[in-house]
């Protein structure tokens, strides 16, 4: 529980004159749920993208389980145990829910340079994918085209896809964004079920979700981490309250 899984040192990323990551240092412990909060445009998604390898930093290093992975591509990181969900749902709309997840299972079970046997008939892919759909509450929806799922279901499907890669580190970018109250409750329940077994980095605006799930919280403002600590420390931190939390916590 206290070994460092992910370490970020001096990460810097600018878009023109805009500094989206300003010397970010971050340490994520094995097994913890680490929330990253901050106002709109603070650079949360940019940070997640640099962790997942979708975006490369101008400076700084990312270490995963002691290995320097700064230069590794997204697929290479995925093979080392990274999985991510996107702020804007990223699934295969023209595949069924089951096919979405089966493909992620396939990515981590043997070669995909196989040309003969229909993938959908591989029992091991099917059963693993079905079990994960069951786990996220989509058991009854496996045959539905992903495009035809409700928004909340699509978010759950994306989580299922991430889980199917059996990740060591799960990066979730606003998993409850755009969800109704009920859907949000269901997603929080799902995440608290996952938490503990996995290491999670959770970017979220929904403070209910953050304070019910996070073991530690880092606050990002204008590309800088201004505080990291346990939820009650963050709640009490005057700088954080001023910069960001004020209204929500007071309310």
């Amino acid at each position, binding site marked *: 529980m206290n070994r460092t899984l992910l370490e970020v040192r001096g990460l810097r990323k600018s878009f023109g004159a805009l500094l989206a990551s300003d010397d970010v240092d971050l340490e994520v412990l094995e097994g913890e749920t680490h929330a990253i909060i901050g106002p709109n445009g603070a650079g949360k998604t940019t940070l997640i993208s640099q962790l*997942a390898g979708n975006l490369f930093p101008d400076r700084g290093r990312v270490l995963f389980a002691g290995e320097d992975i700064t230069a590794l591509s997204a697929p*290479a990181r995925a093979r080392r145990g990274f999985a991510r969900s996107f702020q804007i749902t990223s*699934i*295969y709309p023209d*595949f069924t829910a089951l096919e979405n997840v089966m*493909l992620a299972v396939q990515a*981590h079970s043997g070669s995909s340079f196989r040309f003969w046997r229909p993938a959908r008939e*591989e029992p091991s892919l099917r059963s693993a994918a079905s079990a994960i759909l069951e786990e996220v509450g989509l058991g009854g929806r496996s045959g539905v085209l992903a495009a035809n799922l409700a928004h909340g279901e699509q978010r759950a499907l994306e989580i299922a896809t991430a889980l199917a890669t059996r990740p060591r580190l799960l990066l979730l970018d606003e998993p409850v964004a755009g969800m109704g109250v009920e859907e949000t409750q269901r997603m929080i329940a799902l995440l608290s079920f996952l938490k503990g077994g996995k290491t999670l980095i959770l970017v979220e605006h929904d403070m209910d979700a953050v304070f019910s799930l996070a073991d530690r919280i880092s606050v990002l403002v204008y590309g800088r981490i201004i505080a990291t600590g346990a939820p009650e420390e963050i709640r009490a931190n005057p700088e954080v309250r001023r910069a960001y939390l004020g209204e929500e916590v007071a309310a």
Partner: protein
Amino acid sequence: MNSRIRAIVPAAGLVLLAAVPLAAALLDQPFYLDLVRRIMIFAIAALSLNLILGYGGMISFGHAAYLGVGAYAVGVLAHYGINDGYLQWALAIGASALVALAIGAISIRTSGVYFIMITLAFTQMLYYLGISIEEYGGDDGMRLQVKSQFPGLIDLNDANAFYYLVLAILVLALFLGQRLVDSRFGMVIRAAKSNEVRTRSIGFSPYPYRLAAFVIAGAVCGLAGALLVNHTAYLTPEFMNWTRSGELMFMVILGGMESIAGPVLGAFALLLLEDALSGWTQHWQLVLGPLLVLSVLFLKRGLAGLVFAKNE
């Protein structure tokens, strides 16, 4: 009901195609045999393009290159008196695969308009190469004096036998194509088309899969080129003209990119229409153009969308 149609249509199509030589003989119209054989050869080429265009999302505007390479492989060997069909066709397939490997290795690193332009540019290079080599007839091309020889197996001078060989290769290509797109490999190239970022995030680097698909498509089209040069008994750089590449794309889009059989329908529709219209008026292109535009606008899933039901 839908699954029944799905089973009946290909079977009916196969019976019709198999009956063409008989019908042509009964009607004393050998021309039809020739026409349908030519269409089937283009159907094989279009089917191969669909693997990368429809399933892989790679808008290759240079697929005629492999028709040309396959045809030249046969023609050039024949030019030097090597008429062994196995050797000729193996070279047609191998050389096309190699050319596709070279072109793909570079072009697949780009995307969007750049990909379209690079594939077009490479094909134009091959086209001009064909024009510039006087030894092989340059601009005019050259006759294939002797068709590919398969002693003991088949005589391509026998019009019916050649016809059935093309039909058999078409059916085989359809069958193997279906296996391919449903396989693990096929799922990866479809996934990379559908959502590249997601595909990378679950751990697939699309490049090697795309390149392999590009090479397979090139090799199959090279075989179509070997068939084509035997069909026409003539070889010209026009096989690689960019308008040819455009025609192949049209067959794919018109027929429908979401099924293996779609491009076959597209090849038949386009070439039959071309044939009918050109018999009717010399300005047939003026009629064909708008028809194609309308079909693209109104048949979102192509002709296959009319014939086959959608999944789900």
